């Protein structure tokens, strides 16, 4: 009854098309996840810094941004971007653009909180010491605070990356052909849901679990040092 032949017969479509995005459909889980992580983190740095700004004109909008996106489901944000973006830009947007925009905007709120916590974890004395040796505010941030903050952030950053990696499966809802959608497409033809969904579960698992192992090893190394 349990027949892995269906996975083997469609292995190329599932992995090359679904996971990597090299095929007739474009798409791809990794082709979406990697830029979404990089851009989401970059925007998150600005959000995190803005939340710590002295001026309330910068701080309060950043806080509202974070609270808003952490209070709504990602699925909702994806639908928002899906409807709003073509209206705003006055043209059709491919699923890839919609999904990437939704992920970057949504995840920046979470990355922003991690950046803020990381910066706040650097002891106040470090900033004062930097000021007393004559560094400017920007220099203090660049050479003293950020290097230490980044080190403290690594575990939560990796956790968030894993979350984002898994979240990319939601792009299949608007028709983006990622690993999940590829399995759905194959299943529509073969009707072998148990084998197919278990197989992609294992593929997702391998990526997410290796990332979490890597983060744990890094933590041990930092603690030992």
């Amino acid at each position, binding site marked *: 009854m349990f027949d892995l032949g269906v996975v083997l017969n469609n292995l190329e479509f599932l992995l090359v098309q679904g996971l990597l995005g090299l095929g007739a459909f474009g798409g791809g889980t990794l082709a979406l996840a990697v830029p979404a992580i990089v851009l989401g983190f970059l925007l998150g740095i600005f959000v995190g810094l803005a939340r710590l700004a002295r001026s309330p004109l910068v701080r309060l909008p950043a806080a509202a941004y974070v*609270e*808003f996106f*952490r*209070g*709504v*489901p*990602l*699925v*909702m944000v994806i*639908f*928002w971007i899906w*409807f*709003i973006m073509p*209206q*705003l830009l*006055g043209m059709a947007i491919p699923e890839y653009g919609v999904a990437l925009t939704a992920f970057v905007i949504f995840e920046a709120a979470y990355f922003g909180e991690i950046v803020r916590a990381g910066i706040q974890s650097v002891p106040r004395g470090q900033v004062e010491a930097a000021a007393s040796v004559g560094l400017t505010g920007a220099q203090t941030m660049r050479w003293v605070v950020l290097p230490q903050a980044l080190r403290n952030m690594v575990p939560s950053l990796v956790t968030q990356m*894993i979350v984002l990696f*898994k*979240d*990319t*499966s*939601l792009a*299949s*809802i608007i028709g983006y052909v990622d690993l*999940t959608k590829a*399995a*759905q497409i194959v*299943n529509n033809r073969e009707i072998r*849901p*148990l084998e197919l*969904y*278990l197989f*992609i*579960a294992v593929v*997702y*698992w391998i990526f*997410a*679990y290796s990332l*979490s192992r890597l983060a744990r090893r890094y933590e041990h190394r930092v603690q030992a040092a």
Partner: protein
Amino acid sequence: MRYEFHWSVLWSGQTGGWLLQGLLVTLAISGLAWVLAVALGVVSGALRTGPWRPLRAGAAAYVEFFRNVPLLVWMFFWYFGVPPLLPAVIRDWLFDHGAEFWAGMLALGVYHGARMSEVIRSGIQSIPRTQFEAAYAMGLTPGQVYRLVIVPIALRLIVPPATNESLNLLKNSSVALTISVAELTFQTRQIETYTARAIEALTAGTVIYLALCLGIAWIMGRVERRFAIPGLIARGGA
């Protein structure tokens, strides 16, 4: 961009009822899944800190397998993959009685149980060793140590992260729309389909989710202060 707002689509005709139904289904599926997640999380989280190696490994395997796979995949797995394995009688009964709701509830509960387990484990591990030693010295059995001493303290320590995780569960219940559970996001899409007023429909859904999340966060903040053990849980700064 020119867009004329017609907010009245949200309460004219059936749409108001749809939103309400969607809200009720979201609350029902999240509530049941939450009970399941907390039960699985408490048991597996406690076992992971316990002295029995096979149980510890079993609990770790559950957590690592379920939390490292997307919830959407689990939805498809429980809804499409599992029913064909069941005897025909049970399967037919299920499909007559809202199989998508139960599959979605299971997917949500088992997935978040694994994440809740991590919250509870780190709560237990942050309790000083001396609490365990003192409890054993009083002559309590391992079961009693957990039930009477460790879990009551851990439950208080974990209120903030557990609240966060519960809100994640509530928001993630929206993923159940993929297996056509008629929850809030599903109904929002339905209103959009029937009225072609996307922005109004999405605004309504978004506002309801925001109100739920902010409301629960506010209540749990009060619970945390109410049940804090003086001296044990240091409230930093604010």
